[in-house]
């Protein structure tokens, strides 16, 4: 109804002059309504959703970090245990080695003592047997020699003193002959 003519300005603005003043008002009002809807409904809804999303992502990241920390702790504990076990094993091995060495030394000691003892006994026995043998042999050889000599000489050698001297002399000769051989 009311063409908005250039009443305020002398210049004819042509198409730059709105045909109706209502255009400006309608533009402002409509944009105002849109702004209100955006301000009160749309933007808060989107921002809330973004916040939730961010929280969710951050929450997920935190959970992942916590799980990682837990896994690391478990790994550390496991490593500790493993190290402890290794040390224990090494210690046991060392102990066993020491122990076996001691045992070995002891056994060796014992064995050497035993062998010593056996040797000693053997030697003593041998000595005794030998002296016995020598003694017996001496007597026997003396008797045999006397008998032999008596037979050969044909004379009675009942005189003990003489006989003994003869035998001793004979034996001495025998020993001397044995040593020179």
């Amino acid at each position, binding site marked *: 109804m009311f063409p908005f003519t250039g009443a305020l300005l002398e210049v004819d603005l042509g*198409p730059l002059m*709105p045909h109706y003043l209502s*255009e*400006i008002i309608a533009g402002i009002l409509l944009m105002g309504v849109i702004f209100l809807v*955006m301000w009160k409904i*749309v933007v808060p809804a989107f921002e809330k*959703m973004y916040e939730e999303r961010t929280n969710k992502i951050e929450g997920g990241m935190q959970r992942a970090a916590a799980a990682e920390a837990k896994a690391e702790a478990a790994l550390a504990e496991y490593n500790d245990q493993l190290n402890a076990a290794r040390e224990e094993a090494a210690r046991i091995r060392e102990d066993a080695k020491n122990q076996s060495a001691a045992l070995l030394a002891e056994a060796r000691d014992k064995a050497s003592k035993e062998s010593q003892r056996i040797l000693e006994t053997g030697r003593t026995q041998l000595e005794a047997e030998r002296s016995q043998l020598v003694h017996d042999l001496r007597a026997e050889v003396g008797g045999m020699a006397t008998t032999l000599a008596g037979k050969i000489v044909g004379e009675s050698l009942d005189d003990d003193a003489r006989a003994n001297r003869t035998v001793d002399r004979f034996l001495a000769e025998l020993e001397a002959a044995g040593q020179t051989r």
Partner: protein
Amino acid sequence: MTLGLLPMETDGGGEYHPPSTDDFLWYSVWPGVLPDWVNKPLIQAIIGALIVIVLWWLASRNLKVKPSKAQFAGEYIYEFVRNGIARDIIHHDFKKYLPYLLGLFSFLLVNNWFGEMFFFMYPTFSNVGYAYGLAILSWLLYVGAGFRKWGFGGFLKKSLVPDGVPFYLLPLVVPLEFLATFITRPITLALRLFANLFAGHLVVLVFVVGGGYLVSQSGNLFYQVSGVVSLAFSIIILCLELFIGALQAYIFTVLTAQYVSSSIAEAH
């Protein structure tokens, strides 16, 4: 109701009326009952606003942390304005201005694309009044933001007296800065939007009306072939207009954000 698809001025009568600024003058959609200002652009603006409100309202309902396909599309546009325009230009505090920028971009885009949409075939903002309206709102927003942050004198001093200007140049610089900040900014904002859509629609009209006239009224084979080419070419122009409509919506929004940013920025 005379929501004509295209103002075919050549009503079969033979005489050719070239498209002119008169094609942008609309009268009542229901003559005799409703006043003249209830015209096609007004109806379009209201439908456009309703489309913007309803689509965003639908998009903002039931938002999930894991988006559906439809929500993903909504988020894509939302983030285009939120991150690509508001946050990149205004930086912190951008959320305060986001509702206006988002609404502005959507409203402009829908109305600009009305120029290429069946049934409407007319960009609302080729009526300069609507562009003035939005420019006034943007002006209020960035001037208001400045006054609110720096106080009346503080914002005037910040916007009118640039740092490092020698005092003897101030009489020259201050009026220029005043003109640039408070006068030319909103005017260029409105005119850039209006003129792009006005001219684009006029070009489309020239090709369509002229082509249609050549085909139907000339009675000359060569002219008729030219008319067909002209009509085909108008389709290409329409595609170009789709791009320009989106571009102008983007530019208007970016510049508004830029002005807000320069009003509240710490260092001038």
